[in-house]
């Protein structure tokens, strides 16, 4: 919802940039890694890497991350579509490294 609202303000608006530069993580996973809300994490796949803020979530099981669709998420997604036109955009393996403990 926040992404949809921010979209109307423009993709160069701080609201949009803020919303898509975020990853949600399981709360216990964050505690195990010593991360707090707003902490910076680096996400890496074979296609690229990006540093974003993390936000705790009780909606996600352990080991699963959620990112809103946008330029940071698309840095991690590869262009291979397996002859379908659709790249693997969800359910992809991501390596996560903590950049700061908290803010």
């Amino acid at each position, binding site marked *: *919802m926040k*992404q*949809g*609202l921010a*979209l*109307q*303000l*423009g*993709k*160069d*608006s701080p609201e949009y940039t803020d919303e898509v530069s975020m990853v949600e993580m399981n709360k216990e996973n964050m505690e195990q890694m010593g991360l707090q809300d707003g902490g910076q994490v680096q996400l890496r796949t074979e*296609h*690229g890497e990006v540093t974003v803020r993390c936000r705790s*979530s*009780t*909606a*996600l*099981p352990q080991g*699963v991350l*959620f990112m809103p*669709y*946008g*330029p940071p998420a*698309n*840095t991690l*997604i*590869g*262009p*291979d*579509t*397996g*002859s*379908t*036109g*659709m*790249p*693997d*955009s*969800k*359910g992809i393996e991501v390596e996560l490294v903590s950049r700061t403990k908290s803010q």
Partner: protein
Amino acid sequence: MRIENVVCAFCGSLCDDIEVTVEDGQIVKLAKACAIARSLFMNYRKNLAKPMVGGREVSLEVCIEETVSILAQARYPLIYGLSSTTCEAQRKAIELAELVGGSIDSTSSVCHGPTTLALQVVGEVTCTLGEIKNRADLVVFWGCNPADSHSAHMARYSVSARGYFTPNGRRDRTIVVVDVRHTPTARAADIFLQVKPNQDYECLSALRTILKGEKLDADEVGGLPIGALVELAERMKKCRFGILFFGMGLTMTKGKYLNTSAALSLVRDLNRFTKFTAMPMRGHFNVAGSDATLTWQTGYPYAVNFSRGYPQYNPGEFSAVDILARREADAALILASDPMASLPYHASHYLEEIPTIVIDPKRSMTTKVAKVVIPTAMAGISAEGTAYRMDNIPIRLRKVVDSPYPSDKEVLDKIIEGVKQCSG
């Protein structure tokens, strides 16, 4: 002046009961609008694009001349986008693609393209949103989250709407959500089943197996206990009118069209027991219209190529991500879309290396890298036209305020005229 029954051109629900108050040529007040519609209408003047060539502001005529020159010289142009404009503009974009012998693809290929592939194989038992409002007593949302993405959908059609055979609204319906995460839609559900990532196909196949009366030799499938799957299968068989809404949770994960094939097959199988229907949750307001218009004009729904002078269809070959990732196109015309924000980096950034033209009312990540930017009147606010709702019902978009710029269709008309003159 208060204008009633205005259509919101944001998502595939195409709500057509918005009330807009216009004073001195500007929208000043809205009623019956969801939060996103409110933001769309009230911010329509923000972030507007200007006519630009090579980063310099020029007249609209210069933009069109430059576009004609780029397209007339290109050997393999790509036309991409289409889903956030009218069917009339889509039709013109297809005419232009044929004229220049290029490829044309809509955002459908990175949205419900895998659903289209599945329904070409399986078929689709479907209905209208009106039938769901009036009849559905079991609503399953699988891999979609309308509470965030289609915020009026649940109140107007699928969850709390009161209909002819559902006079008590929410109390007359059972809501089931199957998803990887406990979404805001899941919070409104009676039953939430948390599937493991990339295991939707297994769960859908397990449900089909149970429906056939077979026993599964497992305790769980895809993170769901067999008991929960048996209970869901029974609930589906016994409902009066069921609907399975599904979204990117099926199309964007591993399996893609195999996931959606399994979903459509499950719904087909359920019709041995009761009336059950399926519907993809279409995102952009006229993405269903882009499938319809392309099919009407070329015989194919997306990923269409005209390089041989007649339409060829091949997702994976003529789809935008593949063409850009393989660096095949030598020019691109982007219509009402923002691929720099929405396609994978290694595909979209090729647009920076070729002459890219963007036709869009608003600035975007793609207008920043485009050689030519052509601003247009915003469909549904400053331009009228036809759009198809997610259930393939065509609805007429209204114009409520003027724009200094022509519509997408009018701009494409001028480009087509210019290209025809160039080619003699």
